[in-house]
């Protein structure tokens, strides 16, 4: 939908109704009942999506009813929120069944995530948590009657953990169990599109085998790895999902469903229930899985090595954890990037191409786990623009790398994917608000933004870049059906609401990541797991030809045209990304 400036039919009328409500000091929340739940949302801003959420909720629940023979113990509340710039969700079952949805667009960074329509996906996933934690055997129902319901744990009263266990024992299972089965089932429900078949997950375990990294035990995973590794709690999803995949493959999907179902006669404790279903201790099955995974990944590595792999030269001496988009200052031969590594506060770093040393320029308030920050670079002024508060409403910051002076340009602007365009001294970005992506321009002196084009709900634009002449925008677009494409549009046309691309390449359900213009504007360089492994691709605008430039054993990401056929890339390792140089000819 086009958003011309000052599009204000009904505008002030709406504003009046919108803003008048808090004055009356009453909640702006509205509720819509479905057969088994209540969707609670902000009226009138979220009204457009509430019926769709209700339908997605009932669809997901119908699937779980059939698979688990599950009947909710109470009406499930689904709360819509827009308190962050990236979509997410959470489910809780004690003391009440509550699903909270963050309606912002999902992040597809590094293809850590793939999905089709996001409300369907989020509800498919979260309702697995409700089913596996809320479902009660006769003993649990007895205690629920005794305690007048399920008991939530209260920090001041540690004994409440015991009461919770008696009323909802599977809620006390470890995170890898809860998330593993949720990812396994959301992928099943989406017909195979999801992290259980995700290439990022494959890369993580393939890299561990290549690096000779240890596989953690269930206890080590929960107590150490999720606190010390750069992927933090995401490790619960990674390990849990691979283990569930293995069980379904080695035994049967039906046995997996039996294990996670709390039925009359089943063991309350998840590990005891495992032994009951599979006839062996959980730790033994975990060890079997690790042996299987190593062998499986060795086969994958051998397949990759059937073709010559791309040699690389590492720039930094160690892996740097998560890295944002990077920019090269050719004058000083310095690579600027957001860096996020456990045990340190995320920061804007200056990586020397000469010796690989990393200088810490500025801490970043609230970095994101995988992408750290959104970064842009004005080489003339020597200014880095970056986003702070990345887990809430993002602020736009400016950092002068010569003086190390910093200032906030826009607070809570909710703008990311920022790109500096020297043509017109303008910052472009994509704003997330109320579940919708909007292309915005921020003219000098960067104190105000203007909306240019809003994509309809369900279309997620990300990884923006602007051509050197400032005429074209390249971005990736995810659609409701899960299809992803690389698009190039004329900015003037987009401002008039014309989305017809001047170039487009469909990647199916693979994510086209971080495509950037070459200096002469002829090519776009980016990465994709199109072939199953993340490699660097070059797209020629004039011919529409896509060429693979690398063959990586782990994965290459975020290419920057460097020198002749050389590219700066981020190479994935078990400890995070390493900035490297590759020679990349088609």
């Amino acid at each position, binding site marked *: 939908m086009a958003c011309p400036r000052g599009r204000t039919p009904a505008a002030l009328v709406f504003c009046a109704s919108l803003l008048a409500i808090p004055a009356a000091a009453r909640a702006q929340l509205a509720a819509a009942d479905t057969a088994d739940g209540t969707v609670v949302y902000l009226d009138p801003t979220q009204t457009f999506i509430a019926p769709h959420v209700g339908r997605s909720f009932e669809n997901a629940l119908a699937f779980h009813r059939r698979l688990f023979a599950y009947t909710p113990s109470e009406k499930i509340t689904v709360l819509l929120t827009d308190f962050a710039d990236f979509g997410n969700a959470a489910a809780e079952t004690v003391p009440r069944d509550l699903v909270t949805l963050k309606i912002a667009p999902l992040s597809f960074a590094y293809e850590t995530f793939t999905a089709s329509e996001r409300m369907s996906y989020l509800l498919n996933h979260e309702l697995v948590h409700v089913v596996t934690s809320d479902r009660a055997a006769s003993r649990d129902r007895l205690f629920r009657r005794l305690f007048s319901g399920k008991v939530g744990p209260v920090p001041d009263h540690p004994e409440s953990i015991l009461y919770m266990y008696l009323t909802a024992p599977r809620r006390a299972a470890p995170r890898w169990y809860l998330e593993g089965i949720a990812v396994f089932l959301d992928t099943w429900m989406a017909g195979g599109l999801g992290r259980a078949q995700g290439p990022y997950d494959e890369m993580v375990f393939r890299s561990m085998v290549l690096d000779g990294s240890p596989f953690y035990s269930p206890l080590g995973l929960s107590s150490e790895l999720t606190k010390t590794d750069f992927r933090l709690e995401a490790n619960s999803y990674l390990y849990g999902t691979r283990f569930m995949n293995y069980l379904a493959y080695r035994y049967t999907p039906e046995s997996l469903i039996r294990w996670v179902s709390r039925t009359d006669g089943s063991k309350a404790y998840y590990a005891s229930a495992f032994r009951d279903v599979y006839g062996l201790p959980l730790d033994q099955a975990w060890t079997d899985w690790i042996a299987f995974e190593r062998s499986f990944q060795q086969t994958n590595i051998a397949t990759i090595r059937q073709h010559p792999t791309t040699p690389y030269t590492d720039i930094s001496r160690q892996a740097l954890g998560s890295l944002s988009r990077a920019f090269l200052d050719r004058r000083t031969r310095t690579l600027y990037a957001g860096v996020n590594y456990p045990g340190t506060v995320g920061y804007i770093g200056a990586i020397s191409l000469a010796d690989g040393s990393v200088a810490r320029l500025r801490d970043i308030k609230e970095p994101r786990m995988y992408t750290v920050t959104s970064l842009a670079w004005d080489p003339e002024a020597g200014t880095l623009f970056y986003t702070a508060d990345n887990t809430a409403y993002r602020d736009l910051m400016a950092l002068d790398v010569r003086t190390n002076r910093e200032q906030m340009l826009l607070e809570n602007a909710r703008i990311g994917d920022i790109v500096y365009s020297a043509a017109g001294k303008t910052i472009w970005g994509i704003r997330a608000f109320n579940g919708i992506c909007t292309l915005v321009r921020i003219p000098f002196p960067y104190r105000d933004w203007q909306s240019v084009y809003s994509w309809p709900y369900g279309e997620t634009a990300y990884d923006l870049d602007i051509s050197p002449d400032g005429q074209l925008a390249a971005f990736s677009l995810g659609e409701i059906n899960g299809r992803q494409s690389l698009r190039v549009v004329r900015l003037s046309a987009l401002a008039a609401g014309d989305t017809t691309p001047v170039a487009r390449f*469909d990647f199916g359900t693979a994510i086209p990541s971080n495509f950037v213009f070459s200096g002469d504007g002829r090519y776009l360089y980016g990465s994709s797991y199109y072939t199953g492994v993340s490699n660097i691709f070059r797209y020629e605008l004039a011919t529409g030809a*896509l060429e693979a430039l690398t063959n990586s054993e782990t994965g290459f990401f975020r290419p920057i045209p460097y020198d002749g056929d050389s590219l700066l890339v981020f190479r994935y390792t078990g400890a995070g990304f390493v900035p490297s140089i590759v020679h990349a000819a088609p």
Partner: protein
Amino acid sequence: MMARKVLWGVIAVAAGFIVSFVFFGVPPVEFGTSGTIGAAKRYQAEQISKSDVKTGDTELQAFLQSDTFQKIASDKAARTALTSKEFRTAVADPAVRAALATPAVAQALASQAVMQALSSASFQQAMAQQGVQAALASSAFQQAIASSAFQQALASQAFQQALASSAFQQALASQAFQQAMASQAFQQALASSAFQQALASQGFFMQADQAIAR
């Protein structure tokens, strides 16, 4: 004999293609050159489609995404003005709502000066007057507010003071004033420093009212 066998063979192959197209459809022609690089093969069933997702009020969403809305929502004075009883009474009038929907008014509302003027206490008071509401709904006002000179005048200290006067409010509501607003010369006059000074004088409103009404 051989030719007949070949003919039957060709017919059989053609029939096979036709049956396959009927059941599985004609292979789609897609953007890109996906045939040249082998995409990873994973099992995937058909996904939810765009037509499966029904959402409402896209017009409202389009406005919510605009910088105009953001400016209004983040401006404390504007928020106060918009939540005032007087404003809500005014926007309940269909004529005022229609006026607000015109492009000229919409564009003007994006101006910081106009927003400040509208959020002033004196404007809020003036809004309560039926005559002023009618003036705002008039086509003359819509024309006038599109001019930068008029916007400047609206934002001036003198105009804000003038709005507090009942005489000026009556003047605003008059037919003659509305006619005058349509004139470019009048809009420029409003923005002139001489007019601003005149507005600041107590006796001006009575005279202006009489002059316009004549």
